[in-house]
């Protein structure tokens, strides 16, 4: 049962990443990220209950409050304030992006069989999904031009790292976890302000304009 729930949630995270790639409305992307973080929280809770690792309850609580509620709320507010709701045409169009992401998932899954832990069973799927998420996150960061989408891609990568850390390893020391969580929230805050500044100056969230000379 435990492994079923873990697989369900991990695959759900992968599906949410695909939906992020597949559409351009910023609000939906932010909500998808919230759902993804919620699933990560469920993964942490499930492992905590099944293996009696009580410190994971704290991780789950942190994940859900920070990443599934606070960060999406903050980003939604930022989007609301700057009044830009859509991703502009990404560097690669959606069907092509999806094809690339399919390839990346296959690569991630193939690589996961190389890990000792990932040879079979739940570990295989968890590492496979996490590596795929990591690659998809990096890919999104490269191809999307909006600052908000890039933040979300960065956060997806961070979710992927957490999935491996929680699901496969013995878990990170608590202080490291706390540090990462605050790092993430600080990064989002700073990036949120940065986005507002970019929009204020360039009247667009297109970060490719940053490299243009201003006379």
């Amino acid at each position, binding site marked *: 049962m435990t*492994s*079923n729930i873990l*697989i*369900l949630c*991990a*695959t*759900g995270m*992968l*599906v949410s990443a*695909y*939906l992020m*790639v*597949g*559409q*351009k*409305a910023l609000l*939906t992307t932010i909500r998808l990220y919230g759902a993804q973080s919620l699933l990560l929280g469920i993964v942490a809770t499930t492992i905590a209950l099944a293996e009696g690792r009580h410190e994971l309850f704290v991780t789950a609580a942190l994940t859900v409050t920070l990443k599934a509620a606070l960060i999406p709320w903050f980003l939604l507010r930022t989007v609301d304030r700057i009044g830009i709701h859509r991703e502009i045409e990404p560097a690669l169009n*959606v*069907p092509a992006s*999806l*094809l690339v*992401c*399919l390839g990346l*998932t*296959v690569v991630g*899954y*193939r690589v996961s*069989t190389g890990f000792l832990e990932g040879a079979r069973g739940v570990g295989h*799927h968890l590492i*496979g*999904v996490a590596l795929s998420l990591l690659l998809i996150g990096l890919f999104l960061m490269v191809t999307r031009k909006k600052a908000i989408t890039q933040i979300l891609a960065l956060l997806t990568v961070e979710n992927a790292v957490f999935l491996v850390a929680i699901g496969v390893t013995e878990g990170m020391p608590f202080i490291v976890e706390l540090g990462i969580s605050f790092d993430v929230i600080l990064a989002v805050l700073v990036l949120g302000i940065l986005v507002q500044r970019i929009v204020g100056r360039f009247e667009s969230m297109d970060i490719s304009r940053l490299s243009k000379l201003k006379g």
Partner: protein
Amino acid sequence: MIPDVLLATGAALLQAGGMLAVAPLLKTLIKKMKARLQNRQGPPLWQGYYDLAKLLRKEPVRSETASWVFVAGPRVYFAAAVAATTLVPVLIAAAPLEAAGGILLLVGTLALGRFALATAALDTGSPFGGMGASRDMTIAALAEPALLLGLFASALAVGTMNLGALVRTLLEQEPAWHPSDFLAFAGLFIIVIAETGRIPVDNPATHLELTMIHEAMVLEYSGPDLALVEWASAVKELLYLTLLANLFMPIGIALRAEPVALAIALVAWAGKVFLLAVAVTVVESTNAKLRLFRVPELVSVSLGLAFLALAIRFL
């Protein structure tokens, strides 16, 4: 002993009749739940039947330029939808006419119905019909392979393309989830929304020329012809939800035709279809309709997910 042929025919008639009887209820139920989410009263649950009865009583009005293709369209569409219901296991872990074929026949039958309706829409030469047909085909060209791939993914897990045998094997073996199942489910869920003309793809409640797909295709129909199209669409929707429920949540399906097991199966089936209907309603109420040019992107996501579901089995 009753010969197998008669038994299968009887079961097929019962199942098709049952699905035909329940389908309008499902459609109204979704409409009602949607209305409730928007703080409206919504139609009474029997509204679907009233609408059909009203339409069936009326006289069909057909364009002077319409040929037999226009008349045949709704009939073939309706027949295909009814035929498809006999290929899917609903209450018992066996489809009445499973000897005839499995996944490929099911998808092919549904494609035949769609083809008939699209050609009929082109027949009168009205711009709306042609527009609707071309839009419907654009989406179908992506949705159909995704549907096939998604169904293949679950067939691959069990080793049979026959839907009845597939569900039987699923029931007998230990429930062990694979990422592939969930990916296929997610892919097929998007397909169901696209195929039944629900909101991110098409809006069943409006006749706005810029956005309508299915409604544009059947705009020329009236009276009994329209009733057939509406009824068949409702049956198709119920069919897709049943397929999703029974392939991915095969709990409660009866293995043998015993009264108690059948009663449990009926309750389980109604519950599962209701849950899926709630999911469809929530998706419809919380999303905005996509621009037509964005729809292929959404459908290609489901194609990607279905492909991935298949690929992950080999990794």
